């Protein structure tokens, strides 16, 4: 095969990337340079060396219960299809016809044994095998073509943990279990909520915002923003609480934030794991507001009192780089899809334990819609704040953020009592009052970010 001419595009070098993170633990300082959020060249590198070079979440096995079920998603820029073949084996492939590249699986999800490319009709089965090339015999192909393999290209790595499916376009990644490390306990706290596991409630919601993907990455673990950003939501909850107290019944769902004073008096903590994963937690004083609450006795019996208590906590888990489970009262699965340096698409699902009561499900839905939907009371204020940051970061004469400093005085290498309860050994942890608004949790995200970028640049 002839070597393609060398590309002569200017790419930021190692020194440029290294200068984007100011990580000086001995001085009690950490910061991220604003170019990380606004430089399109950094975005290109993130696609190649982060999203397309490490494990990405691609779906739940419960989305593909039957043979020949498939779903489509992306890894970085690449369209992929995850499917169960006729024998029930899961696989993940680039969703791109080997002939001229057309998307073969056009729908978000579906079922079917054979899938024909819309362009010239090459046909693939759910094992990714090319089973028919249109008019192959009459095609006067050369022996060189006949010697080639025409199947859909498998991703380099594909594996799962507790029903969460992950794929990597690069073979050079640690095994999934090692990659996730003790962040797996955060997944267990989600998956074990139902005796038969979890499910996605029908109905997905997607939205976009005009800002960098890392604002979303951070915001999920950002306890500091909650009260200032969501004041109007808190106001609505207070009104509902008063109304509920006045009437004996109410049509609106409760929320753990109805008594914001009680929340503000509770503790918040964070665990940071290798490879950029983090878990933010809060010892939620309003357990009765959780749709999961009626299941507490069953949970205590099945998983024990300690883990059941942790399931009632507020927990936001980020599995770097593209998936988050956000659980305050209801629970959301968020998939981050960066589109450009200043544009991001989010795909979100309501997650529920299988078999919860009809009443609990209604409560979960209403809480979810209120808080998590881009059509609700809270998420639009988050995304609007990210957009404000993106526009503000256009002040190119300013270099460094000051948003990674809260909690540095409270952080501790390794675990703590709470980590021991979960049986985990994080890289570092922190715990404090609600108002501490820890920001050390982001350091782990950016250390993994920098490591992957450096590795990728060094190799290319």
């Amino acid at each position, binding site marked *: 095969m002839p070597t393609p001419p060398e590309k002569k595009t200017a790419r930021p070098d190692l020194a440029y990337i290294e200068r984007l993170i100011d990580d000086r633990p001995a001085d009690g300082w950490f910061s991220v340079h604003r170019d990380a959020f606004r430089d399109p060249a950094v975005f290109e590198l993130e696609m190649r060396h982060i999203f397309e070079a490490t494990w990405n979440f691609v779906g739940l096995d419960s989305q593909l219960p039957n043979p020949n079920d498939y779903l489509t998603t992306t890894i970085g820029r690449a369209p992929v299809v995850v499917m169960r073949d006729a024998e029930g084996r899961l696989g993940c492939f680039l969703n791109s016809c080997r002939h001229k590249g057309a998307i073969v699986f056009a*729908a*978000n*999800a579906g079922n079917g044994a054979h899938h024909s490319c819309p362009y010239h009709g090459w046909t693939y089965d759910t094992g990714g095998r090319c089973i028919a090339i249109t008019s192959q015999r009459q095609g006067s192909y050369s022996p060189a073509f006949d010697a080639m393999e025409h199947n859909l290209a498998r991703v380099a790595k594909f594996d799962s943990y507790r029903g969460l499916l992950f794929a990597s376009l690069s073979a050079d990644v640690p095994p999934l279990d090692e990659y996730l490390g003790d962040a797996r306990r955060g997944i267990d706290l989600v998956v074990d909520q139902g005796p038969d596991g979890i499910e996605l*409630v*029908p*109905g*997905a*919601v*997607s*939205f*976009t*915002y*005009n800002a960098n993907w890392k604002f979303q990455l951070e915001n999920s673990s950002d306890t500091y923003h909650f009260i200032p*950003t969501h*004041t*109007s*939501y808190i*106001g*609505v909850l207070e*009104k*509902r609480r008063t*109304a509920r107290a006045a009437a004996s019944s109410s*049509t*609106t769902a409760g929320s753990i934030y109805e008594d914001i004073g009680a929340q503000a008096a509770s503790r918040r903590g964070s665990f940071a794991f290798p490879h950029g994963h983090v878990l933010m937690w809060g010892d939620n004083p309003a357990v009765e507001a959780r749709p999961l609450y009626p299941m507490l006795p069953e949970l205590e019996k099945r998983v024990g009192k300690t883990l059941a208590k942790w399931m009632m906590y507020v927990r936001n888990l980020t599995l770097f780089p593209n998936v988050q489970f956000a659980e305050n009262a209801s629970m959301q699965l968020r998939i981050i899809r960066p589109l450009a340096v200043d544009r991001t*698409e989010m795909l979100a699902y*309501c997650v529920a334990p299988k078999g919860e009561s*009809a009443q609990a*499900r*209604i409560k979960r*839905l*209403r809480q*979810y*819609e209120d808080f998590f*939907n*881009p*059509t*609700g*009371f809270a*998420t*639009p*204020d988050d*995304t*609007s*704040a990210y*957009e*404000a940051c993106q*526009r503000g970061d256009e002040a190119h004469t300013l270099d460094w953020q000051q948003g990674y400093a809260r909690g540095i005085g409270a952080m501790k290498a390794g675990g703590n009592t709470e980590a021991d309860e979960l049986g985990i050994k994080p890289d570092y942890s922190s715990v404090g009052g609600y108002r501490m608004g820890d920001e050390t949790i982001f350091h782990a995200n950016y250390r993994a970010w920098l490591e992957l970028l450096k590795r990728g640049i060094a190799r290319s």
Partner: protein
Amino acid sequence: MKVDLAEAAALLNLEAMLLDEQDWDGWLALYEENAEFWMPAWKSETEPTADPMKELSMIYYASRSGLEDRVQRIRSGRSVASTPLRRTAHMVGNVILMPDDGSGLASVKSSFNVHVYDTRAKTQHVFFGRTTHRLARRKEGLGIRAKKVILANDCIPTMLDIYCV
């Protein structure tokens, strides 16, 4: 219930105007206290969710109090997504009066385009879809007992508030 098309269309136009003029009290007054407001999410490319008690909705309020909550947030001055409010122009058309189903309510279907302008980013967007209103006769005129909005373009750019459909 006896309603004529012109009367029903006039109510839909009035609702559109009140939202565009941001006359929230006037808008809320069109709704009955037990009015249901429902905007389903989509299950697939072709199918919206059908049961708000078992499936996700974009918005679901069982009574007008949910709409009042939205207005409270809009007015609070404390929602960054709502300060300043986007400007809108609602276009309601294809108003069709459905056959009387004997329920005591009149069913009216229509289509909408809502042009939404974000004054900060100087960007605009059009939300479009179909609406079914269920109307009740009250002494002050027709009132809305239920509104169901099928939003056709459901990938939401940053936000969609109650005044954007």
